[in-house]
């Protein structure tokens, strides 16, 4: 097949082909970057929280309206924990300071050596007087869970020293002691003279931070064995239920708590599923926006190619008729238009790859987005070649169907 005549025909009327190529280039550039961002966000939102069964987990916060003394509050915590454990369908209850993905919680800087200038990492701090390994269903990969005597009652008004043992998440342990076992090592909260050491007794596979940050910080958590009382008026209980019974248990748990208390109280309940949805709401919204734009982009580009190809077919009816009359077969005409379109699309694709890289460079430098892997551009290029051929096929087929007799009649 001769490419030369197609090329010289294209060069004679450049505007249309340039417009189509430009469309392909713009679409490819935007689409590749959009697809990359969508995939990235999906990966972020799909990170495991570490909870064995998120759908069966919820939490309830309780604020007693009576201004209790710290000791009264401790008694209340113990009583309410016991009450919640008696509710049918409840598998495990823990009084804990914060929930993963709830976007409400504390961090602490941690260090391997108190003489460090800068801390080694920032860890999300889960303070619980019960076994979070059991309530959250965390997977211990090294060491052990806290022993019952290690779970201390701590008055937050008078004590700020951490208990002697902690459990870390695997990503945090690996960050602090790369290629070593963290078990038995001493980790420090803070640096300098205020640093407080504590021993690592266990490592769990994963427990996402309270804020669910993007990047490694989202995986850095530490579990501190303390039933904290006296410093916070709001008490949080995390509850895991039998699979599928969460919604029923939620209702009954609140009723049970209310019945057990003589003073009025304010309770609030939320499921981990809701927290997850809220945490990633913006990411999901962005994904939807990008997917919508991408679909429209493809439709518009395809319609542009179809439109221009149809126009050229109409304009060249007579030439096609002449070619057919001179012996060109239908497939020759079909091939001509497809080849022509392929050449235009190719120009667009090459332009699109360059434009896509430039757009990504802009996003990287101005918005600190991630670099675009080459795969997206390769797949995008293949997709647009296919799209170009498919879109041109209809008009090309119509061109090929022109009968030489009618097309040349008016010449």
């Amino acid at each position, binding site marked *: 097949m001769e490419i030369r005549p197609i090329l010289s025909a294209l060069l004679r009327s450049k*505007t249309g082909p340039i*417009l*189509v190529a*430009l*469309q392909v280039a*713009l*679409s490819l550039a*935007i689409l590749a*970057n*959009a697809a990359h*961002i969508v995939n990235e966000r999906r990966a972020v939102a799909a990170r495991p929280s570490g909870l064995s069964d998120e759908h069966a987990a919820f939490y309830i916060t309780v*604020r007693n*309206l009576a*201004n209790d003394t710290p000791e009264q509050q401790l008694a209340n915590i113990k009583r309410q924990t016991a009450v919640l454990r008696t509710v049918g369908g409840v598998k495990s209850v823990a009084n804990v300071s914060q929930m993963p993905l709830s*976007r409400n919680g504390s961090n602490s800087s941690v260090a391997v050596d108190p003489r460090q*200038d800068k801390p080694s990492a920032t860890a999300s701090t889960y303070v619980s007087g019960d076994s979070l390994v059991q309530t959250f269903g965390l997977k211990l990969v090294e060491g052990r869970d806290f022993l019952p005597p290690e779970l201390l009652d701590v*008055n*937050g*008004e*008078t*004590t*700020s020293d951490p208990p002697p043992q902690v459990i870390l998440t695997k990503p945090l342990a690996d960050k602090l002691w790369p290629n070593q076992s963290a078990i038995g090592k001493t980790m420090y*909260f*803070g*640096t*300098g003279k*205020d*640093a407080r050491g504590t021993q690592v007794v266990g490592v769990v596979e994963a427990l996402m931070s309270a804020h669910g940050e993007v990047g490694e910080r989202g995986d850095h958590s530490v579990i501190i064995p303390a039933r904290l009382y006296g*410093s*916070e*008026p709001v008490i949080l209980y995390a509850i895991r239920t039998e699979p599928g019974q969460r919604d029923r248990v939620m209702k009954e748990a609140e009723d049970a708590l209310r019945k057990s208390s003589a003073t*009025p*109280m*304010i309770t*609030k309940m939320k499921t981990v599923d809701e927290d997850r949805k*809220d945490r990633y*709401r*913006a990411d999901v*919204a*962005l994904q939807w*926006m*990008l997917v919508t*734009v991408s679909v*429209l*982009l493809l439709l*518009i*580009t395809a*319609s*542009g190619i179809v*439109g*221009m190809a149809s*126009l050229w077919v109409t*304009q060249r009816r007579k030439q096609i008729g002449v070619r057919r009359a001179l012996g060109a077969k239908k497939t020759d005409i079909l091939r001509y238009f497809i080849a022509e379109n392929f050449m235009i699309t190719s120009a667009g694709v090459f332009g699109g790859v360059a434009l896509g890289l430039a*757009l990504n460079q*802009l*996003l990287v430098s*101005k*918005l*600190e*987005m991630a670099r675009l892997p080459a795969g997206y551009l390769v797949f995008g290029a293949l997709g647009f070649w296919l799209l170009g051929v498919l879109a041109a096929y209809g008009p090309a087929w119509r061109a090929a169907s022109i009968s030489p007799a009618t097309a040349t009649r008016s010449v």
Partner: protein
Amino acid sequence: MFGYYFRLGVRSLRRNPALTALMVLTLAVGVAASVSTLTILHMMSSDPIPQKSSRLFVPLIDNGPVEGYTPGEDPEDIQISYKDALNLLKGGQGVRRTALYGVSAPVQPPRADIQPFNLTGLAPTRDFFAMFDVPFLHGQAWTEQDDARGADVVVLSREIAEKLYGDADPVGQRIALMGFPFTIVGVIDNWMPLPRFYRLNGGVRYGAGEEFFIPLATSIRHEVTHNGSMSCSSNAGAGFAARLASECTWITVWFETASAGDRAELQTWLDNYAADQRKLGRLKRNAQNRLYDVPEWLVYTKVVGKDSKLQTWLAFGFLALCLVNTIGLLLAKFSVRAAEIGVRRALGASRAEIFRQFLIETSVVGLVGGVLGLVLAFGALALIGMQGKQTAAVAHMDWQMLILTFVISVGAAILAGLLPTWRACQVTPAIQLKSQ
């Protein structure tokens, strides 16, 4: 001639309905995407208090440890310590000043039919209301004596006042907050600056108003913990008193000056204060003391998210694609009218006339596409608004954006029409007439 060309343009919409519909739709979708994302960006970054944004200042004093400090780096937090906040208040700089932090408190409603619930709000000093032009529905702000004594007084939001007392004026009534009787001194009218620039710590920056206000001193006296973020560079120690004495940062301070020009004076005072504190050995870092007016503050705290910018950029890329597409479609549309142009030219129309006629015709397309785009944009914004309270607050179109939409759509159509129109002018009448 304008009216005539305009009518011709409207008529030609009907000539190739499929092509025209595609053109209008392409333009409308492009306009809708760019306008709706731009509206959100505009609402997010607009000046929340234009009348005095250049006279309101936030100070930032870096009280971090000297270990691991690189000169010139930003402070860890966008808040300051309680000690610094008190000293700045005492300094008496500017015409007004306030220190504030977010609080929440349980309220026991006076009506038995409402269960106790939690209020979230703010603990500022008295000047806050005047500084930020907070409108009062009933009563007024508490007095300076209330601030000094830490009196149990409260200002409620309109929403909460109506929930608890209906339409009656509750000023003077007592209400149980945190188990203590507070006297209601005022009720503010609906007030929700976008973004919540006066307190940017914590997650919610849009679509959240304050439900109640109590004096800072009162809140401290009742040891109300902060509802927001706190950053500590060292162990704060246990208990509320230790927190007040610590270098943890959890308070925001605002100054109002008489004019924007008084900024230098305030900066000098701030530098002197920090120098004194450095001499006392309290401030360790030799960092610059910063002062931000409202627009600078919104930039420094990165109020406009990267995602919003990304969406706007991509939407404008999309609009560019739609434009290229429209150019192609217009070329196709005009190319079949070469004969008509030939006749007009032969009958004496100049190229400028042809140019005018076709430009007006493309403007008509732009107009129709713009109107449709506006409808789509409203739909898109409504859809975005359903995502949640935060986004609903910024997914509103104001008259500025309406005009901009109009300009964008017609401008886009004219831009798209330039090349096809120019091509239409190049038609040589002789050739066209010969071939007929």
